[in-house]
């Protein structure tokens, strides 16, 4: 496909050119893992490398890390992305800012700082990194997370952080040795990743302020509505109210920081009818990351988090991170090529005798399925002319709701008890059904019991 990529930045790296504020990522890369670097299986242990076709450019993140932590530093991540762009020869027009959008017949016109681009399909991968503040009296007068000063300038000060998600807890962690008092507040209780069993929630390495709160050590984690923020000379007065008691609590503090999250700079797309959703107003999307309200407009990268998929048992996707959306990106490229340009490379045929072992190998080792549980699936399709065709990795929701008449999809799911187990979805004559396989303590599903369960699910369909 002919394509063009433009970026307002001066080089590769995106938000990692600036954040996280305390210079260490939340996503890890394990240099030493059960599989060799550069293999597909290794991707499960490397959340930060992009996925090139060229073998020499795989697992780049490892080569950028200095060994002091398995969480890369911000500059290491930036170098990882810059090296990827340079070594793979990705052609990007940097310093070119998208400023407006309009239709012209069957084409989209993107107005940019360097002139106009015309295209059949625009894909907006503009990130979720624009500071966002809720509507709250006085919040406009306080700095956002993105405007936080160096940590030492908070020495001996009372700091009130609005927001109890990762960015709020990241700041609190960085202030622990400096601030006199830290208050973290929002209406609902903090969610911890070890409880949500996902990357939604405060990650384990930022939980120290929570422990300080529990031990009454100068940190207060408060569940309360924040009614207004008043500036009183050199200090602030923050008015809060607890939901259960309606009691007002007023805090006198030296600094207030809005750790209230980020949104996506979608410019004029909302005026063109692109529906947004959620607190941060991200574009609502189909399972193939197309605007749910304006066909033909697609999204890429972290914005994919607003295409939630089935969310079985409430489990969110990892599309807000590199380890999730890097797989979505591959699927999106294939989908756009097929739907809009008629390019549909022939998919490989798989021998019936290999189906069971192939699916069990996939649910045991496929990085796409481990990083995107109950979101992406390996799909096999019954083709009347060719036999059983491996249709690749596909959004699970699309298979369940509008997949082939006859086929099967293998994915991984997690129940509220924390069990991770494979699930096969079948479509027989267009009717979907699910078949949960048992969990395994080592997550190795290549057992006789699992083979029997796969045979039972697929008999008369693919077997």
């Amino acid at each position, binding site marked *: 496909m002919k394509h063009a990529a433009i970026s307002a930045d001066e080089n590769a790296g995106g938000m990692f050119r600036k954040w996280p504020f305390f210079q260490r990522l939340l996503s890890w890369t394990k240099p030493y893992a059960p599989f060799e670097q550069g293999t597909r299986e290794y991707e499960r242990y490397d959340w930060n490398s992009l996925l090139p076709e060229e073998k020499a450019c795989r697992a780049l993140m490892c080569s950028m890390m200095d060994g002091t932590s398995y969480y890369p530093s911000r500059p290491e991540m930036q170098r990882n992305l810059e090296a990827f762009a340079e070594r793979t020869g990705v052609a990007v027009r940097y310093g070119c800012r998208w400023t407006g959008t309009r239709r012209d017949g069957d084409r989209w016109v993107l107005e940019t700082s360097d002139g106009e681009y015309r295209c059949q399909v625009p894909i907006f991968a503009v990130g979720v990194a624009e500071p966002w503040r*809720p*509507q*709250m*009296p006085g919040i406009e007068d306080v700095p956002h997370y993105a405007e936080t000063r160096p940590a030492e300038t908070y020495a001996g000060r009372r700091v009130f952080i*609005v*927001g109890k998600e990762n960015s709020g807890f990241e700041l609190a962690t960085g202030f622990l040795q400096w601030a006199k008092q830290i208050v973290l*507040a*929002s*209406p*609902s209780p903090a969610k911890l990743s070890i409880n949500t069993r996902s990357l939604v929630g405060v990650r384990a390495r930022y939980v120290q302020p929570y422990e300080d709160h529990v031990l009454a050590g100068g940190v207060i984690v408060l*569940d*309360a*509505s*924040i*009614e*207004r923020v008043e500036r009183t000379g050199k200090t602030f007065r923050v008015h809060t*109210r*607890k*939901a*259960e008691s*309606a009691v007002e609590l007023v805090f006198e503090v030296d600094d207030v920081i809005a750790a*209230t999250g980020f949104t996506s700079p979608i410019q004029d797309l909302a005026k063109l009818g692109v*529906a947004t*959703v*959620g*607190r941060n107003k991200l574009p*609502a999307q*189909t399972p193939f990351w197309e605007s*749910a*309200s304006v066909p033909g407009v697609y999204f890429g990268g972290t914005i994919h988090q607003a295409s*939630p998929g*089935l*969310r*079985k*048992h*409430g489990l969110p996707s990892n599309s807000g991170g590199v380890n999730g959306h890097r797989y979505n990106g591959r699927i999106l490229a294939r989908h756009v090529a097929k739907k809009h340009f008629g390019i549909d490379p022939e998919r490989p045929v798989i021998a019936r005798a290999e189906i069971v072992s192939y699916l069990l190998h996939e649910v045991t080792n496929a990085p796409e399925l481990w990083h995107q549980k*109950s979101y992406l699936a390996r799909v096999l399709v019954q083709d009347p002319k060719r036999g059983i065709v491996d249709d690749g990795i596909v959004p699970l929701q699309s298979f*369940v*709701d509008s997949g082939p008449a006859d086929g099967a999809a293998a994915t991984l*799911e997690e*129940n*509220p008890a924390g069990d991770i187990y494979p699930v096969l979805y079948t479509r027989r004559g267009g009717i*979907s*059904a*699910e078949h*949960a396989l048992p969990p395994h303590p080592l997550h190795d599903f290549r057992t006789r019991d699992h083979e029997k369960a796969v045979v039972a699910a697929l008999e008369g369909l693919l077997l």
Partner: protein
Amino acid sequence: MRSAADDISETLAGLAIFADLSRPEVERIAHTLEERYFAQDERVLREGLSGSAFYIILDGEAAVIAGGKRVNTLGRGEFFGEISVLLGEAPVADIIAARPLRCLVLPGELLKEFLQTNPRVCYRILVAEARKLANATRRGG
């Protein structure tokens, strides 16, 4: 954070099942639930598939499809999904967005705690369930 969920808090305050709550309570709930948008004809709840959730309609219209037939239509302020979650069973009908649909969603495993934490919402839901049962009984009779 007064309005971190912004207009969602305003909308919630106007729905019958949240009518008895104070503003801070509504805001806490708005932060607990997740907003979802469904394009027209998109499936929301799937008959026979496990792991579903509790949905409250903010805007739009949902069709209840059972046995291939549309048996009911749900609109703003109405809710669905609670029966399969409370019984621990897969839904017995499909729910499909009849028009673009906005909902607030609570994962199934959090529903019990949500109802226990918000007894006045629980009571309103119970009243609505009683009304549904009475209507179904009348139709059956």
